[in-house]
């Protein structure tokens, strides 16, 4: 009885564990497939006509600044970029109320830094936001090498006006932008992505605690700064 009981418990435990591990492997494999790429025309339509200066999207004299701390490999950042970002751009950036600063951080490893360097280099051509939006849409498994030079070159062909070869060459010379973004993140105490800070342009930026990745989570903060 004793041995049989222990064997039965061990057998059931092994079966449950095998099921969980199998499901985890299947789930992880499914997640590692790149997200369906957004069309470059979609990114272009979201950003069309909005000024881009380096890592800043929107009018330089917009009364409110929103800083987005993000890692290009972070799935939540991709969710935010694909869902909330277009709404924030439509309702706040396009009318000139808010400008968004992309403070990219490389929390998740070498692919994050490679993508970040390319994005900042694309920013020298006024195409950082097109680049990040497209990279999020094609996000692959963490540090799987999905952000290769070839992928970045190919990306260049889908973003009108972006010279990908030049961006790749310049990606090793964007240390200052990387350090500035890192400094902003450190000062804001950022420990996870996406995180946000907001405040009057050229004024004090205050971290924004968001309860969800919905655009509505940021609206009260932006509205209060715009009203104040």
């Amino acid at each position: 009885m004793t041995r049989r009981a222990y064997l039965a418990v061990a057998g059931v435990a092994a079966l449950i564990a095998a099921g969980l591990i199998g499901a985890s492997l299947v789930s992880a494999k499914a997640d590692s497939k790149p997200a369906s790429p957004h069309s470059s025309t979609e990114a272009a339509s979201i950003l069309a006509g909005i000024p881009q200066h380096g890592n800043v999207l929107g009018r330089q004299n917009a009364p409110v600044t929103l800083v987005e701390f993000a890692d290009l490999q972070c799935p939540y950042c991709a969710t935010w970029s694909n869902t909330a970002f277009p709404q924030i751009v439509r309702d706040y950036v396009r009318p000139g109320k808010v400008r968004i600063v992309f403070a990219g951080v490389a929390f998740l490893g070498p692919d994050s830094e490679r993508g970040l360097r390319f994005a900042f280099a694309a920013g020298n051509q006024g195409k950082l936001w097109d680049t990040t939006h497209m990279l999020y849409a094609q996000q692959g498994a963490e540090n799987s090498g999905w952000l290769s030079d070839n992928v970045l070159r190919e990306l260049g062909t889908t973003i009108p006006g972006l010279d990908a070869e030049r961006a790749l060459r310049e990606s090793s010379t964007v240390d200052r932008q990387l350090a500035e973004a890192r400094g902003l993140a450190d000062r804001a105490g950022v420990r996870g992505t996406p995180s946000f800070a907001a405040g009057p342009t050229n004024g004090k930026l205050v971290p924004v605690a968001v309860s969800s990745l919905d655009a509505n989570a940021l609206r009260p903060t932006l509205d209060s700064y715009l009203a104040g």
Partner: protein
Amino acid sequence: MNDRRLKFAVAALALIGAGVAGYLTYTRFAHTLIICATGGCETVQNSRYAELLGIPVALLGLASYTFVLGTAFFDNMLARAAGAATALAGVIFGLYLLIVQLVVIDAVCQWCLASDLVLDALAVACLLRLRVGIRVQAAANP
């Protein structure tokens, strides 16, 4: 250790584990930052292994700890065996997740490690409780 103490140990450990898993579940749904000394918690929580077929692993952990906690309130053999099997499965799955953290994700979450330790102790307590149950049953039905 007598059965009453073992019951208490199972309940206490399951409560601690539920606390850890509950905290991770909360941070996942609230998108808040995780208090983390190892620096790898966000990486692990954002990885593709943090969900199992769309269900957060932390939520599964919370459900499992709550289930084992429930078994502590019953003295029959089925409850003892179910508690032990669940805790043992948790130990094996926790070991798999630890290997994933070290080898695949290359980051370690302190809360996951804490949960692993609680699970190990919980499995031992549940197995001891099962042993007591088997002995009592054997004595009652010689």
